[in-house]
């Protein structure tokens, strides 16, 4: 009868099915009885098994939970109490840990009751070991985790919902981002264009960088590139406002500096908190090249790559757009002949930081100068790959580059 197979006998208490109400032991009960009471009526289940899982002893609490008697439990293997999936987890993960470590903690399992229903439990197990090659008995403490498990299931579902909604938010951010840059650049006879936009980090947040190139008619084009302060949906609203305001104002506006001043006023009245930095270039065809009027509003000045001179940064500057009322902007005029190129970029390029410090203007000039200038594409590719490599592939800020090259 006794399932412990001959070691210290534990008096088998009344069979479980009788559901004896737990009563307070009378005071003055002998210590041995108290230990026995504590074993059988503990608020958790106890099991002792052989290393192979054969049940040597179990307490009444567990027997009651499962609907078996302690005698009946003594006739089976612990594995038989597990669901098939739980058994797989036990065999591949828990049992090896127990063998190697002598202990496994907080394992979530479902135990099968006599009636086939499942009892969610958390269990801790220890294995007696004289040394690792001589495993002894396994002792398992089992805690009813019914409420906890349903709470955890809620948590798990909440986590899945959060992940799904994050994925939707990311998709939304990507869609929104795509509206801030043109889907493709226009084809201009005699002017080779290339651009790249790379969002910061994993691209899950809408950045503030944008660029645009559009036609004013009569061989006149506007190229604009900028950076709205901040990130996320609110910044995106301002970015869209700036991009479309530039488009609307450009018609009939004589010079980029006037366009910039007007944009400044509009932005101040649109949103007092958000500002941006912008560079606007108006290009007009002249001979085999283009005249470019460049106006800068708080933005890094563009680079001029010359076919027969070293690359240099234009000496152009002007105040940030959207902060101070009634400021003046200037136009910087350059001529782009065959082999020349104008490169507009955001501070995600020059302020990219890596182990060697900031990427910086000087490094940028060296990079584009070393480039063989086989066209706008090559310039943009070189800048982007150098800046990313400098940051080991993890861009901390958005990067936008726009190159206009005269073939």
């Amino acid at each position, binding site marked *: 009868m006794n399932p412990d197979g001959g070691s210290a006998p534990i008096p088998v208490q009344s069979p479980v099915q009788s559901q004896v109400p737990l009563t307070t032991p009378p005071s003055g009960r002998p210590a041995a009885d108290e230990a026995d009471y504590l074993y059988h009526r503990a608020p958790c289940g106890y099991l002792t098994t052989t290393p192979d899982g054969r049940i040597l002893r179990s307490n009444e609490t567990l027997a009651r939970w499962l609907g078996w008697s302690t005698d009946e439990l003594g006739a089976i293997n612990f594995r038989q109490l597990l669901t098939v999936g739980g058994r*797989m987890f036990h065999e591949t993960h828990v049992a090896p840990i127990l063998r190697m470590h002598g202990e496994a903690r907080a394992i979530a399992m479902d135990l099968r009751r006599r009636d086939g229903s499942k009892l969610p439990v958390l269990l801790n197990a220890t294995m007696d070991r004289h040394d690792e090659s001589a495993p002894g008995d396994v002792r398992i403490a089992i805690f009813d985790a019914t409420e906890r498990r349903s709470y955890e299931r809620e948590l798990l579902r909440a986590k899945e919902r959060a992940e799904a909604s994050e994925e939707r938010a990311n998709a939304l951010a990507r869609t929104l981002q795509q509206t801030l840059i043109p889907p493709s650049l226009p084809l201009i006879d005699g002017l080779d264009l290339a651009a790249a936009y790379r969002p910061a980090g994993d691209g899950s947040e809408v950045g503030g960088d944008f660029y645009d190139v559009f036609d004013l008619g009569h061989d006149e084009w506007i190229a604009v590139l900028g950076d709205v302060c901040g990130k996320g949906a609110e910044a995106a609203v301002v970015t869209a406002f700036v991009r479309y305001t530039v488009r609307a104002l450009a018609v009939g506006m004589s010079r980029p500096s006037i366009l910039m001043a007007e944009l400044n006023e509009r932005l101040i009245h649109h949103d007092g908190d958000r500002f941006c930095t912008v560079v606007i270039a108006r290009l007009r065809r002249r001979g085999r090249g283009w005249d470019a009027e460049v106006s800068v509003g708080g933005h890094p000045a563009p680079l001029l790559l010359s076919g027969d001179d070293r690359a240099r940064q234009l000496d152009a500057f002007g105040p940030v757009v959207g902060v101070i009322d009634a400021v003046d902007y200037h136009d910087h005029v350059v001529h782009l002949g065959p082999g020349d190129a104008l490169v507009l970029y955001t501070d995600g390029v020059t302020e990219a930081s890596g182990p060697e410090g900031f990427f910086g203007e000087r490094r940028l000039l060296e990079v584009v100068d070393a480039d063989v200038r086989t066209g706008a594409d090559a310039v943009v590719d070189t800048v982007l790959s150098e800046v990313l490599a400098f940051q080991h592939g993890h861009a901390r800020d958005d990067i936008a580059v726009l190159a206009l090259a005269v073939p």
Partner: protein
Amino acid sequence: MTAVSRHNVSVSGLADGPPIVFVHGFGCDQNMWRHVVPAFETTHRVVLMDLIGAGGSDSADFDAQRYASLDAYAADVTAVVRELDLREAVLVGHSVSTMLVAMVQLAEPERVASLVMVAPSPRYIDEPGYVGGFGEEDIDELLESLASNYLGWSAAMAPAIMANAERPDLGDELTASFCRMDPAIAQVFADATFRSDSRSLLPQLDVPTLVLQCTDDVIAPIAVGEFVADQVPRASLVLLDATGHCPHLSAPEATTEAIVKFVRSSDRASA
């Protein structure tokens, strides 16, 4: 990153000895070979590795889509074997890795001299005419079990692992932990493992193969071990009097002895 560092490869034993590679199965890491390895260190160059998401492996470039197939895990083992430029190696796999080492043998025949399959199963799910021991719903139950066991894992462990480089003390703690599994990868690996079907590989294997079968293994029952030994042309089956799925832990002496014997006899055969 090299395959050797990515898979936390450790090499011990005779530097110029014949190579023997041990590959752990689902749910564990290279630690589980600890009782078997010493017997080979005097005669072999012993190579241990952790599969992606297990033990001390680096899982930075884990891609759930790619690793939905066992081919990706086998390619990782192949990469280690190639990088160490092993030739005529004995590949020892446990559980699902028995099929991984089979794939490596087929991909790199000249690098593999023989195979040892500890508790193999090429197909866990029953089919008409084949008993693998499990149904689809059992695999779902396992995945659920994994999910509930790792609910709090990410929050508790991820920072420790991420900060690993700057905090070597934590790194030591992780190395000392047993059978560590990245929960997201464990889900994908379990799914790939228990829904795989590698039966068609078995007749193609053309190296001496030892099949070690436990007498009482719920994951890989005797009938499955016999199936494997029957399908692999040059297989020999050894039945180990061991309970459970990990005879290298529950019956390490018998397991080691069987492998030593097999390796010696194949050496003689090839000499």
